[in-house]
C-alpha cells in the first residue's frame, strides 16, 4: 500500500515537472532577433534582351545626350530629323550624325588621360552609358586588354565603335 502511494507521488511529481519545463522553462529562453537585409545591386538588362529598335528621334536625342551630356536643342533635333528622313540608308546617316557630334568641340568625351588613369572605370561607365548595362566578365577582360595593348586607342574611337554597333540601335 505504501509502495503504491510512493509510486503515485512519483508519477505526480514527474508530470508536474514536465509541465513546468514545458511552459515555464521555455519562457526563460532568450529570443533571437533575425534581421534580413538586401545588398544593393544595380539592375541592368542583359545585352541580348533588347527587342525594340530606337526610333529616329530616340537615336538622335540619345546619341546627343551621350556625347554632350545634355539634352539636344529642339531646332537641332528638327534639322537632324529632316536630313535623316531624306536619305534611305539610315545606317550611313546615323554614322554621319555621330561623326558630326564627335567633331564638335563642346562634346563631353573623356580625355585620353582620364581613360588611362582608370581604364576599368572607363569601361564600366561606357557600357552603362551606351548599352545600359555593365560589361560581363568577358567583355570587361576584352576591353581592359585592348586598352592596355593599344595606347593609340582613344576614348573617341571607343565611343564611335560602340555607338555604331548593333546593340546601340536597340533598347
Amino acid at each position, binding site marked *: 500500500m505504501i509502495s503504491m502511494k510512493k509510486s503515485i507521488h512519483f508519477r505526480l511529481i514527474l508530470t508536474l515537472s514536465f509541465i513546468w519545463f514545458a511552459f515555464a522553462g521555455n519562457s526563460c529562453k532568450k529570443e533571437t532577433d533575425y534581421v534580413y537585409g538586401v545588398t544593393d545591386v544595380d539592375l541592368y538588362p542583359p*545585352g541580348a534582351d533588347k527587342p525594340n529598335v530606337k526610333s529616329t528621334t530616340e537615336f538622335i536625342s540619345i546619341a546627343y545626350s551621350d556625347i554632350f551630356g545634355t539634352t539636344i536643342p529642339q531646332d537641332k533635333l528638327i534639322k*537632324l530629323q529632316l536630313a535623316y*528622313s531624306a536619305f534611305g540608308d539610315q545606317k550611313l546617316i546615323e554614322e554621319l550624325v555621330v561623326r558630326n557630334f564627335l567633331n564638335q568641340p563642346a562634346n563631353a568625351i573623356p580625355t585620353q588621360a582620364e581613360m588611362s588613369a582608370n581604364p576599368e572605370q572607363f569601361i564600366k561607365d561606357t557600357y552603362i552609358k551606351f548599352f545600359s548595362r555593365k560589361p560581363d566578365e568577358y567583355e570587361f577582360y576584352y576591353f581592359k586588354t585592348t586598352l592596355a595593348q593599344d595606347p*593609340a586607342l582613344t576614348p573617341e574611337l571607343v565611343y564611335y565603335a560602340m555607338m555604331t554597333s548593333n546593340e546601340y540601335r536597340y533598347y
Partner: protein
Amino acid sequence: MKRRSFIKKAGIATAGVFSVPYILPSGRLFAATGSRIADHVVLCLFAGGVRNLESIQKIEGNLMPNTLLGNETVHPQIAAGMSALPLPFSAKLQTQGTLFKEFRYAAGSTGHFNAHSSVLTGRYNLVDVNLKQRPAYPTIFEYYRKHNSPSMSALNAWWISNSLGPYPALNYSDYPGYGAAFGANYFQPKSIISESSYEVMGNPKNFSTSELEKIKKIRTFCDNNFAKSYTSGDAGVTNPMEDAQRLEQFLKDSYTDALAGLYDNPWNSPSGMSGDMFNVFSAEKIIERFQPELLVVNMQDVDVGHTNFTSYCDNMRKADYAVAHLWQAIQSTPGMSNNTVMIVVPEHGRNEVPNTVLDAYGRYALDHTNDAMSREIFCLLVGPPGKIVQNQVISSIQGQTIDVVPSIAKILGFYSEIPGGMLEGMPLEQAFA
C-alpha cells in the same frame, strides 16, 4: 558514224549548258532571263496632277515645247503669268519615242500618294492607303533588285522624290520575300542638300585607315556579343561598306558644290530653279556619278493647281524643261547615252470642273477628286531608234499606269521572272521597236 555521234552529243551538251538553270552562289535559281531592250531606265513622274487639256491637248497653248511638237503660243489671258525660261531644246522628246495621248489611271483614288503607288507597284489600290504606309505589293525597285540577274546593288536603283511626307515609304513594300533588302537608295535632295542639313551633317569627323581598323575591331566584338543585326529593314536600305563610302563621298561632294554656289542656278534659268528643276538636277548628279540602271524621279510643282491655275500652267512649262534637260544629261553620260529608255508619265490628271479659287488672271483652280478627267493622262517613252519606236503618237485609249512596271521589267529583261499574279498590267509593247 563516230563523228556524227560526237557532234550530236556535243550539241546536246552545249544546249544543256544554255538551257539548264543553275544555282547561283547566293542560292537563287538562275534561269536565262529575257534579253534587254536597254540597260538603263529613267522614270520621270511628271506628277502633281496634270490634265491632258493643258498638256498634250494644248488648249492654253504649247506649255510643253520641249516635249511636244507645235508652236502654239500661250493663251494671252495667262501669258503674263509665265516665267522666263531657257530656250527650248531643238529636238522635241515626242519625236524620239512613242507618245500615248490617252493613257489612264483607271482605278483607285486620284490622290497623289495612291496614284504614285500605282505607277511604282503596277497595281491599283482600290482602298485608300494610309499615308506613310508602305505599299501592299512590291515596288519596281524590289522587282528589279530581286529578279534581275545578276542581282544589282542599291547603287543601281534610286528613288528621288521632291518632297518627304509619305513618299519615302514608296521605296519598298512589306510584301513577304521582298522588302528593304531589295529597296532603292532613297534621296530627297531639297532636304539633304540644304543649309540646315549641312549645319548638322556637313562636318563629320574623319578617321584614318588605322583608326577605322581599330573601330571595326571593337564594333565587331560588340556585334558578336549581341543577338540582333541592324541591317535592311530596321535600318532602311543598307549598302555594303564600299558602296556606303561612295555614297558618303557623293554627299560630301554635293555639299562642297552647294557651298560653291553650283546648286544655286546650275541651268542658268532666268527665273531661277523651281523645286522640280532642282530635284531633276539632283537626279542628273546621281546619273553622272553612279549611272544607275533604274532611277525614278518625281516632280510635283504643278499641284499648285489647287489654288492657282496660271501657276499650274507655268510650272508645267518648268517641268517640261526639266524633263528635256534630264534627257540631255542622260545622252551626255557615258554608258547611258543611246542605252536608256526614259518614261514620262503624270500620276493622275485633274477635274473637269474647276473649284472656286480664282487667280490673278481670272482663272479658276482645279482639284482632283476621282472624276473621269482626273484619270486621263499621257505617257511618253523615249529611247534610241531600234529600241523604241520613234515619232509615234497613239491617240486611242491605250495603256494604263499599272503598265509602267511591266514595261520597265521588260526593258531591263526580267519581266518573265516576276511571279504570275503579282502585276495587273502588261508591257507597253506598242512602244518597243
